[in-house]
């Protein structure tokens, strides 16, 4: 099942079984969504449940916040994470605060969906990964999904929550075909161990998870380095328990993410692991991340600016050699 179809399935399921669920965003209705995630839902549920909005991101999220306060369960779509900057007042000043400031009296069952990441030559202003901005705000839940199974279950879980959730997707994953199966009792707050290993714990999320899986296969086949790959579905809160458990076993940590290295999510993960497990570490944690540049348009430069399976492979090999693996 395509990633986008899994998201569509989750939205349709929610619309079908809960009359309070509404979708809103730019072109989510008649056009079916810029990335075709909401395709067919407008025809089925009509303009009152699937609402086309003007190009006004702050208003989209603001409207959704109001809807949620008054008892609906809105799912707002921002066309890409880059445009969410225009909605930062609502996302930072309203969404995370209202539950706390009302002493828990106001419920905010709200999901704001948005894709992010480097696609193919969309230019600096359309290629950013901004998860670290959102994941640093108390009061927000930041969830994401790396394949069809997680896309369906995490999004559905997010819609059913009574708290505000920011749901991140990756532009390049929409057209990827993944195996799909419905699961019982899926918990997005528990990180998934997608590959067991004994030498290195590699933490990743969204599209980078797939690059890491590919690199770990090469590492195993060519270098005999066995990686344990952890896929985060929740970026706030992060499931440190699973990460600690794995690092206690492997004694080594690598975090791979697409955003620039400085102050990214990997900084937090490696700092926490260093705080908690310092005496169990056999090497300094390694971050493999994007370069400190706005993403270039030129395809070759664009690929140079972000981690690829080849870079993940090479950097883990080099780091291993430097630090006695």
């Amino acid at each position, binding site marked *: 099942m395509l990633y986008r179809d899994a998201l569509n399935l989750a939205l349709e399921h929610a619309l079908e079984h809960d009359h309070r669920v509404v979708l809103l965003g730019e072109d989510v209705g008649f056009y079916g969504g810029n990335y075709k995630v909401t395709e067919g839902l407008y025809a089925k549920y009509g303009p009152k449940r699937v609402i086309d909005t003007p190009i006004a991101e702050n208003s989209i999220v603001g409207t959704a916040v109001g809807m949620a306060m008054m008892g609906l369960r809105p799912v707002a779509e921002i066309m890409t994470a880059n445009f969410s900057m225009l909605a930062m007042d609502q996302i930072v000043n309203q969404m995370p605060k209202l539950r706390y400031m009302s002493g828990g009296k106001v419920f905010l069952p709200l999901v704001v969906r948005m894709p992010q990441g480097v696609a193919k030559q969309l230019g600096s202003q359309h290629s950013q990964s901004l998860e670290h901005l959102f994941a640093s705000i108390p009061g927000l839940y930041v969830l994401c999904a790396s394949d069809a199974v997680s896309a369906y279950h995490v999004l559905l879980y997010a819609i059913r929550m009574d708290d505000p959730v920011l749901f991140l997707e990756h532009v390049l994953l929409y057209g990827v075909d993944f195996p799909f199966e419905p699961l019982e009792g899926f918990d997005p707050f528990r990180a998934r161990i997608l590959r067991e290993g004994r030498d290195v714990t590699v933490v990743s999320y969204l599209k980078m998870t797939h*690059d890491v899986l*590919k*690199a770990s296969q*090469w590492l195993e*086949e*060519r270098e005999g380095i066995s990686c344990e790959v952890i896929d985060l579905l929740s970026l706030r809160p992060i499931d440190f328990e699973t990460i600690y458990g794995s690092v206690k076993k492997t*004694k080594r940590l690598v975090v791979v993410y697409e955003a620039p290295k400085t102050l990214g999510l990997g900084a937090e993960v490696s700092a926490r692991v260093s705080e908690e497990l*310092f*005496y*169990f*570490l*056999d*090497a300094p944690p390694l971050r493999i991340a994007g370069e400190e540049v706005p993403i270039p348009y030129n395809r*070759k430069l664009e*690929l*140079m600016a972000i981690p*690829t*399976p*080849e*870079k993940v*492979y*090479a950097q883990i*090999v*080099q780091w291993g*050699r*430097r*630090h*006695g*693996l």
Partner: protein
Amino acid sequence: MDYEILMPQFSDTMEVGRVARWLKKEGDFVERGEVIAEIEAEKAVMELQSFKRGLLKRILVREGQEVPVGRPIALMELGERIEEVRRPTAPPTEERKAVPPPIEEAPKVVPTKPPERVELPSGFASPYARLLAKEMGLELEELQKEGRLPSPAHAKDVEGLLRERYFTPKALELLKEYELRAEDLIRALPDRKIDEDTLLAYVEREGIPKRLPVSSVQKSLISNLSKSFVLPHYHIYEVFDLSQIPWDKDITLTHWLIKIVGDAMQFFERLRALFKEDYYLLYPHSNVGVAMAVGEELYAPVIKEVNRKGLKEIAQEVRELKKKAEEGRLSLEELQGGTLTISNLGMFGIRSFDAVIPYGQVCIIAVGMQDEKGMAHITFTFDHRVVNGFHGALFVKHLKEKVLDRNYIRFLKKV
């Protein structure tokens, strides 16, 4: 675009192949038809020839690795031989990094020069190495001053030292076989060097199982037998009077039976058949497989056109095939094409047994021990889809008569 060399399918039943040996290395120029690698599959070793000419750019699969049929195992840059001008001996890593390949390919940014290991004055160690050393009672700093540990020391260095200090080399090998952790043993058997005998005694006391990997030959045997065992089959048991057969050390009973069965097959076309769902493929000649144990493995190479060959020729061929099997050099050609196989366990004093038909064949004949009167129990297993009971019975009857036909036996002996 690079040309992908795929794992070929050498036979209908082949699903995975193992790269036994690369005969070319990265950067070699390959002519069309040149052998690039040796592939092991279905118990045989085959040569992989190149269909194209060009530069062998990258090897994706290391020796000994198993790969499903159709998966790329190497990349080639097609074209004529280009002199060294375009390819400096070691392209700088930076230049390679600059052109990351499409995502679907194998890693290209291979560090050409291993980066330097971090080096510090003695006294440094990773936190975990320190923990480990403390647990094991090692004085890290002293060992570093003596030069027996690097600085900074990592877990691997400490573990290596522990192994060296507490284990003999033989014992270390055994550790792997029994999947034991060195630290556990040092804790269990403190304050002494652990040699082979100590380790074996420990293993016996604790009842720890040994790990014996399944060989690729056995894997292919298992997969084929599992497929053929579920096919509809039946047995015919019969006692044969083999007293007329004058076998000796050079031409054994097995050799005789190959010849006699091969001749008998000429009268029964269904025993020379391959089942193809809608039709049978009937071969003109009798191709008889012989089951032979070589070390731990079972092979069943095929003697082709038995009906046209003499006893001595057959005996010679069986011996040659056995030798090849021992050297692991049986070709697929030599393992394929049989429709019937003979398995003889009589020499071990086995009175009677039945066997599983090799996948794709029609019949297997299980020969038991000859008693003092020359009688032997023989079990026939037939594929019911090809040979019905009636034909099976006729074939067995025909064979029974043949082994008693003195003129025929005398004739065979002369040829």
